[in-house]
């Protein structure tokens, strides 16, 4: 919406600026960060300086104030450089947008500038050991005390945990139901906050994933985001945007994988000729490109619906997330296949692309949950039309 009012060429200039950063500052290091599990703080600070840490926060609050249609292009460009880096920025932007949108005046004034500038980073804490797909079953409790709340409980699979300065935490202010959940902004080093070990994992290895434990953590009332009981709705709304971003990170990664595959098949010779001469290879490349563009088109449509406030936005975001992450994984798998045995070696990016993309089919809601969201709307008499 917003970027449509801007003059021609500006959107392209923004995408190109991000692509240039990704190719110049991320791509050369992505393999090393993956191997050594390094959180690339200097480059995250640099990304902040470029304006990438407050993408969806209004300009009044120090953000860039762009819509999702442009946002997905930027995440694609970032992921072409480094998937794990782009995905972490997605999470930081998701949490930061929640603070901007639902934080009170004091919180916005004191903490938002540091988040939008990237001086401080944020993690999004919804999932718990026993509340994954059934996120509304979360049990972390925020007990009311005169001038605030006391948090007790545990969060699991928290991206960036241990390296971020702020936590956006969904916790119970009433004993049952999704309407008993509220959201809080909690300093990551607050007394009573502790962290589990760094999880060893398949992909996204440049960012830490840890459990976060809360033991009698006091949070002042003005650090609650939105009204009591609104937390779950806010968290799901943030996830709609997060799913678009992850879909975009998938498309960008798959494009990088396809690029690598094309360049490999041109140089690899077998049976006395370049393997790019074989139709089996050509057809595979053609299908990869075709499916990737189909995914990108659905992603674009979902992002436009998000920006326009379309009533089927949630289902469109779910469809885009499911389709883009599946297609991107298939493209990365095809790219690895074209590399033959070299595809599984760490010397080529194919196996990293595949590992990172495998995560995308599970997180920000598993792809089966995406199907559930889509089907629910299709079977609802009132909402069905918006999806057909």
């Amino acid at each position, binding site marked *: 919406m917003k970027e449509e009012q*801007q*003059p021609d*060429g*500006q959107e392209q*200039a*923004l995408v190109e*600026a*991000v692509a*240039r*950063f990704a190719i*110049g*500052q991320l791509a050369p290091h992505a393999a090393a960060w993956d191997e050594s599990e390094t959180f690339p703080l200097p480059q995250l600070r*640099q990304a902040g*300086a*470029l*304006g*990438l840490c407050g993408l969806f926060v209004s*300009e009044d609050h120090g953000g*860039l104030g762009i819509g999702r249609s442009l946002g997905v292009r930027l995440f694609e460009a970032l992921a072409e450089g480094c998937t794990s880096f782009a995905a972490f920025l997605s999470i930081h932007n998701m949490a930061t947008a929640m603070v901007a949108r639902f934080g009170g005046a004091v919180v916005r004034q004191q903490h938002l500038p540091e988040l939008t500038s990237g001086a401080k980073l944020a993690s999004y804490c919804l999932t718990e050991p026993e509340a994954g797909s059934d996120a509304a079953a979360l049990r972390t409790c925020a007990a009311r005390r005169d001038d605030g709340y006391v948090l007790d409980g545990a969060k699991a699979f928290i991206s960036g945990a241990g390296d971020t300065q702020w936590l956006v935490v969904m916790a119970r202010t009433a004993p049952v139901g999704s309407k008993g959940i509220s959201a809080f902004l909690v300093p990551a080093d607050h007394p009573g906050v502790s962290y589990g070990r760094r999880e060893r994992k398949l992909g996204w290895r440049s960012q830490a994933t840890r459990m976060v434990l809360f033991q009698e953590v006091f949070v002042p009332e003005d650090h609650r985001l939105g009204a009591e009981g609104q937390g779950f709705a806010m968290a799901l709304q943030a996830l709609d945007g997060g799913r678009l971003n992850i879909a975009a990170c998938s498309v960008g990664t798959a494009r990088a994988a396809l690029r690598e595959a094309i360049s490999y098949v041109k140089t690899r*010779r077998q049976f006395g000729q370049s393997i790019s001469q074989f139709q089996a290879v050509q057809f595979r490349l053609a299908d990869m490109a075709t499916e990737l563009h189909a995914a990108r088109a659905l992603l674009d449509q979902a992002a436009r619906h998000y920006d326009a406030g379309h009533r089927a936005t949630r289902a469109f975001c779910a469809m885009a997330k499911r389709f883009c992450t599946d297609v991107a994984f298939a493209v990365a798998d095809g790219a690895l296949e074209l590399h033959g045995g070299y595809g599984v070696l760490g010397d080529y990016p194919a196996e990293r692309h595949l590992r990172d993309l495998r995560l995308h089919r599970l997180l920000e809601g598993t792809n089966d949950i995406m199907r559930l969201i889509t089907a629910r709307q299709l079977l609802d008499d009132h909402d069905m039309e918006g999806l057909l």
Partner: protein
Amino acid sequence: MSDMKIMVGVKRVIDYNVRVQVKSDGSGVVTDGVKMSINPFDEIALEEALRLKEAGKAAEVIAVSVGPSQAQEQLRTALAMGADRGILVTTAEQPQPLAVAKIFAALYAKEQPGLVILGKQAIDDDAGQVPQMLAGLLDVAQATNASKVELEGESARVTREIDTGIEVIEIRLPAVLSVDLRLNEPRYVKLPDIMKAKKKPIETIDAQALGVERLTFLRVIKTSTPPARQGGHKVGSVEELVQELKQRGFV
């Protein structure tokens, strides 16, 4: 000279990543639908001007492009990087170096900059002539292929990389500088600055209004593709490599 203006050239060229294609009739290269960018050497020139301004040694940076109206895009990028304003000089056809130098000379008379900083060459035609021609036309000092620039009052110490080593010269301002690859590393453009750049002014002037009528002096007879590179192959061992080199008469 903290009130000094710096004028910078910004040429629209085919992006350095693009594989250039020669038109089938040999009349030039394909630019339709091809990604265009600021000439990389010009970007270095702009970066240097911006650093001088940020160090308090200049007051205003003016980005100038000579060419088609689409060169506005490159001027916008220059403004997003930090130039204060842009001047687009439109021409009916692609001007050759002497015409570009005359256009810059006319703008120099109008703007009175203390420094004109230009790329040492553009990556499209590799002519590498405008800075020297401009200094000649203006009868001011020039320092070409600069790899380091230090301003001291009314003069500049310029380090140049030449065939015999490193040369340091001192020139009086006003002057024309042409910049080399190793002078600096241009900054990444900040996204908010791209948005703000649309509010910065770009003045459009026709070359004729600057008194420059003739744009070309040389006729291009033919543009053709260099012979295709022969594909190589990998050798299995050092012995094999040496043997191959001997066979081909390289050692």
